């Protein structure tokens, strides 16, 4: 099940995505993330709780990044989960997003 939770990190607001960001949840994710974006054009997404990410999920994130830029905001992705890293590696999209991926202790 896909979920978005607001968390605070050192006083900054971050959206934590959890569960499966796949074709099953893509429509919902796009809808909810767009709502958040309309309020805060600069978004930070914590991906540490993503269990599964497929092509439609990548498309949603990329679309969001472009939308943020169009609204003179920015989208940053942080704390990529192993599932996110695997998908990004397979599709070679890490460069398109441009966020650093930290490979830390599990």
């Amino acid at each position, binding site marked *: *099940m896909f979920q978005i939770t607001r968390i605070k990190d050192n006083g900054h607001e971050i959206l934590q995505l959890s569960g499966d960001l796949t*074709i099953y949840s893509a429509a919902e994710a796009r809808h909810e993330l767009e709502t958040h974006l309309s309020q805060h054009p600069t978004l930070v997404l914590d991906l540490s709780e993503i269990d599964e990410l497929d092509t439609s999920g990548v498309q949603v994130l990329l*679309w969001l990044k472009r939308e943020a830029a169009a609204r003179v905001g920015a989208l940053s992705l942080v704390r990529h989960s192993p599932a996110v890293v695997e998908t990004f590696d397979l599709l070679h999209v890490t460069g398109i997003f441009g966020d650093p991926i930290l490979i830390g202790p599990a």
Partner: protein
Amino acid sequence: MDLDQAKQTFIIEAHELLDAMEESLLAPESSEAVNAMFRAVHTIKGSAGLFGLDPIVRFAHTVESVMDRVRAGSLAFDPDLVNLILACHDHLAQQISELQEGDDAGSPETIAEGDALLARLLPYLETVPRPAAPPTTLVTHESHPHEEEDDQPCWHISIRFGPDILRQGMDPLSFLRYLQTLGSITHLTPLLDRLPAGPDFDPERCYLGLEIDLDTKVERQVIEDVFEFVREDSQIRIIPPRSKVEEYIQLIRELPEGDHYLGEILVKGKCLTPKDLEEALGTQRQEAFEDGTVQGRMLGTIVIQDQAVPPAVVAAALDKQKKAKEKTGHEVKVVKVQAEKLDRLVDLVGELVIAGATANTLAAQGTDSRVLEATAILGKLVEEIRDNALSLRMVQIGETFSRFRRIVRDVGQELGKPIELEIRGAETELDKSIVEKLSDPLMHVVRNSIDHGIESQEVRRARGKPATGSLSLNAFHESGSIVIEVADDGGGLNKQRILAKAVERGLVQDPSSLTDQDITNLIFEPGFSTADAVSNLSGRGVGMDVVKRNIDELRGTIEVETYEGAGTTLRFRLPLTLAIIDGFRVGVEDTFYVIPLDMVIECLDLGPFLESEQNHLINLRGEVLPFLRLREVFETRGAVPARERVVVVQFGELRAGIVVDRLMGEFQTVIKPLGELFRSVKGLGGSTILGSGEVALILDVPQLIQLAVTRKHALQPRLSTVS
């Protein structure tokens, strides 16, 4: 299990199918019989292929082709052909028997006989028979030693995926993962230029393109086949290693992206040198200038024609199937067990499930991973035991249905109405305890149909119907429930008469406010009977209200579908078992509720989906659904939390949202009857004890949906939180 065992299954199955085929051959008039024959041969062929039994595949294939023509109506099933197919049937039976004796290839006599029969089948085939299809085999590929030392032996794959592939369950990621099993991907460039900005973006549409360089030893066909399931909708271009520069340039020309962009990708993958590229693009511009177009052609794209093919509905040859099943029954060893012993076992398993849940909860609170692991294994075993124990109590409904054959005939004769009974879905299984409680209501409904539904022969003739009435009993599974239908082709319910009677009896005050369905449902009101003349069969003081009560007790529902002059169908929808359910736990304040999991569609935050607070409506991606708050239904005290959750539930065709404070996840539960205190509370179906020892209330979803739909929120008893 191993392949030998599977082969034994095949032999038994083939014999059964051939028996069914023989039966159909002896009464070949109906289309159902022809279908049954076709399917028998078709199934034998399909399974034989799996075991590599080529002679059987070859023979069955030709018989199937002939049967297919009969089925399609392009070939008459005359006595000559029936005899020939009978001979083919015997031959197949002989092949299977020889297989049973361990002779996979078949004896020389049998092979000769087969050839002779194939020759006789020939004239019945449309054209020259397709060469008997040998099972498709995977080609193994040998490596090519001469390519070894090359530092750029890469295949270039260029693909623009079709827009609908994600919706069809195909993810480009899977193809990449599979490609990696064939070789190594040396370069990959994702192309997402087609991804639109703003509201045009459809999150379920695929906009991805890939330029891939693959280092592999497999042959072209294997690479092409990786994409076989998306080939029709996608643009795919595969260029072998060390192809001529022109091939790459052609690719660049034909793809929609910018020439230089693609060129650079190819240079990066070492398919082209920068010099090749520069020279080639120069020439290309020249040519484009000369012929005035650079427009790319579509690459090997096959356009699917959406021809309106009527879905060829294949009628089920159920009776034949049933007989085949009964025959298998003889070979199965059966131990008779007293019903009470079985019930006791199921009770104990119920307790075991609760005890298991308790252990699980406790283990999860601790930190010992070994305990967690042990309880997890235990949990899995308990689940298996539960399923097994419940399956012991599952019985086919066929036996109950069959009892009606005699009743329908006798009652029909008594009333002078010849009636044919059709039984479908006899092999559908349900809990024994439900079957037992079902015979009475079923009996009542069947008698009602014969008595009041089906007209007398004279009336039927006058209405242009066949003199023989038809009654059917049908059972099937549908989304976690079992559905039982009793249908007749009689006069249907007379709504005017029902309404008149209801008014006369004081059951209805304002007839104008009733919908057709409301009127139909009046027959379930206590003290209602429409029979003009009370026969000695029904009308024994038992009305449809009793039937409804019986079904209610089983946590089921009744629907009536009636067409005046054409007949009535009564549909019972029942749970598969009464004892144990998979539940989804939710919380309101400090009370827990359980929703049967098979009725849960999805869970959402209420906020973003709220359509109208005043009318209690949510908007689920365009579908507007009513919702109700549990805290309002059960008048729970306390403040509404900032973030409310909604569980979307479905029963039959109705959907609604149930709003709660918290979602607490799935768990398995044993249903205990409600105490006296709660029995009259609408919306509750039972109670259960949680692993922690606390009590949770099981929601009666059908009732709640009904409540949400009709917006009748006035609930009788006052009830605050439950301790």
